[in-house]
């Protein structure tokens, strides 16, 4: 374990921790409102650790929907992780089996984005860095779940204090971090358009997988490396 790498991960993960914290509290509050006990809400945060799917799951619990539909919905919301773990494979393949188990358990959207960015700059990422980044999100997520469950009524509507915009803005920052990549603009345009159309026609959560696959298909069809300089010119400012 490399302390410097670990704490660099902790430092880089802190903005994620801050922007995700309200959603941990929101989940705890909604979970208790939908009939889960505090212990069950915490168990869900500790074992699933994927905010959007937890909120979808809890919404369905409240509607007394068949168990297999709830599990399938959680799977659908989290399906994007399959693409993540495939795309980050080159940067984590040197981890030991136990490290991989921990690393994939902690895999989230920001963890993936930062791992790819760091991996591309350095060839691979260290387990120490990965663990620091992951734990500074994981541990507060549990604490916020319990806080939200205990004080659920006090939070009320997250819109009142403006915390509902933090997550989409954070994801936008992550998208922009990849603006130097080949085909960035066409991929973003097609994924964005298709996901919005799918959101209104097929519905959530399928719009995520459908929009993502559209962008990936486009990337697969476009010719490879053109003039990268020319390609990046329009994107800076």
């Amino acid at each position, binding site marked *: 374990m490399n302390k410097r790498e670990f704490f660099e991960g902790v430092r880089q993960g802190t903005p994620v921790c801050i922007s995700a914290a309200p959603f941990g509290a929101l989940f705890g509050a909604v979970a208790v409102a939908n009939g889960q006990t505090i212990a069950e809400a915490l168990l869900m945060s500790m074992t699933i650790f994927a905010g959007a799917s937890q909120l979808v799951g809890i919404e369905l619990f409240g509607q007394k929907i068949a168990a297999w539909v709830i599990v399938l919905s959680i799977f659908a919301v989290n399906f994007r992780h*399959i693409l993540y773990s495939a795309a980050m494979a080159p940067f984590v393949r040197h981890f030991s089996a136990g490290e991989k188990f921990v690393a994939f358990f902690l895999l989230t959207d920001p963890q993936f984005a930062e791992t790819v960015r760091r991996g591309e700059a350095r060839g691979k990422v260290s387990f120490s860095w990965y663990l620091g980044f992951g734990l500074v999100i994981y541990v507060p997520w549990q604490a916020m779940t319990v806080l939200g469950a205990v004080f659920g009524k006090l939070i009320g509507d997250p819109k009142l204090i403006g915390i509902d*915009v933090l997550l989409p803005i954070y*994801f936008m920052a992550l998208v922009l971090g990849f603006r130097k990549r080949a085909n960035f603009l066409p991929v973003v345009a097609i994924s964005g358009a298709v996901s919005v159309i799918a959101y209104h026609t097929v519905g959530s959560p399928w719009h995520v997988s459908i929009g993502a696959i559209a962008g990936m298909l486009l990337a697969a069809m476009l010719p490879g490396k053109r003039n990268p300089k020319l390609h990046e010119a329009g994107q800076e400012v």
Partner: protein
Amino acid sequence: MDAFFHADMVAVILAGAVATFLTRIGGYILVMRMKSIPPRLEAALNAVPAAVLTTLVAPAFFTGGPDVQVAMAAALIASLRLSSLPMLAVGWCAVMVMRYVLTA
């Protein structure tokens, strides 16, 4: 008094946890099974970050009210010069101004 856990609830949670873990490790296992990655698949995987993350952003923008849209646009402009934490602050300030100052 309420019990801490109900057996049926715990069963669904754990099944959801297993399903989630399978998505987190599944792509890695599939890619490692292949001897080499075809160039088109590599291009597709290379597009994953922008493609997937965009699907989390775009519907939030188009289904959000004017307050959310102004906040996200302000954050986008801020991102040209600022890193992610100040970008969050700009977006948060914008949405609060839209909701409490520019109402009525």
